[in-house]
């Protein structure tokens, strides 16, 4: 196990967090692998690639007024030499361009694949990171697959067990 991957994952998470608060639409592509798969909160079922991620962020950021409130809780990162994953709960509060208030929790799962052997040398521990703090990381990082999901109160319905 290397410290680098933990911090690589941490940096990608921090960047995603900053991107939601104050979107850097054009910079958003850099963290994604060319074959990144996204399961986002809204349809379609899946999207592929950095450009799809950029377009989605552009749509998202243009649908709200000003900077958004964004908090991350229960972040957990598990990493190996080549693969890592992270999950946590995210709370987003914002006002849409037509004045509707949004305040909701998301569950986020993000999976990482190292595409270069470069090791990281960051020493910051993600558990000690504070909002806006940025661990120093060497080497590229990539999101190979990710999932963001809004929790909705689905009942488990009778014999079909299909959420309504």
């Amino acid at each position, binding site marked *: 196990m290397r410290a680098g991957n933990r911090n690589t994952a941490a940096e990608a998470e921090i960047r995603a967090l900053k991107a939601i608060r104050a979107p850097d639409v054009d910079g958003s592509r850099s963290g994604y692998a060319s074959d990144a798969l996204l399961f986002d909160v809204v349809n379609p079922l899946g999207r592929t690639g950095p450009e799809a991620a950029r377009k989605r962020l552009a749509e998202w950021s243009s649908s709200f007024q000003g900077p958004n409130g964004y908090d991350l809780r229960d972040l957990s990162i598990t990493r190996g030499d080549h693969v890592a*994953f992270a999950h946590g709960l995210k709370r987003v509060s914002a006002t849409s361009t037509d004045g509707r208030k949004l305040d909701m929790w998301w569950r986020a799962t993000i999976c990482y694949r190292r595409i270069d052997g470069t090791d990281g040398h960051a020493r910051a521990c993600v558990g000690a990171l504070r909002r806006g703090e940025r661990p120093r990381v060497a080497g590229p990082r990539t999101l190979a697959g990710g999932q963001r999901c809004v929790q909705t109160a689905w009942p488990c319905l009778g014999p*079909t067990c299909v959420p309504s």
Partner: protein
Amino acid sequence: MAVQMTRTDDRAEIRRLLDDWARAARAGDLEGIMAAYAPDVLSFDAIAQLQFKGAEAYRKHWEMCVAMCSGPMTFEIHDLGIEAGDGVAFAHYLLKCGGPGPDGKEQTGWMRVTVCCRRTSGRWTIAHEHFSAPFDMESGKALLGLEP
């Protein structure tokens, strides 16, 4: 003598883990379902609550689901992708799930699933999983009719 597994072996083992899990889910076999999970599994399921912490809490949730889902279930793994490293891996797939409705006609929907695994004591288990369906921002309702 230690045997060095290749990533191909790891992927095959994770594929088996998921196939066994899906077979158990179709059969309502609670022990078979729970055999796939690490004791400290943290799950983001699609229903009931934001997260389930630990196998004991998750077992109770599965117990409820199994009790509600009598009859032949549809639980099919499609478009499976697996990335395996040295003891840490992830997989993602589309799940076609459902079962017969009151009229006996099959009702199914599609979910997106991400599964994160750890290999401990020579065996892969699920340490984290995430089930979801996209939702409609206007109505707040889950969109289960989407096709891949």
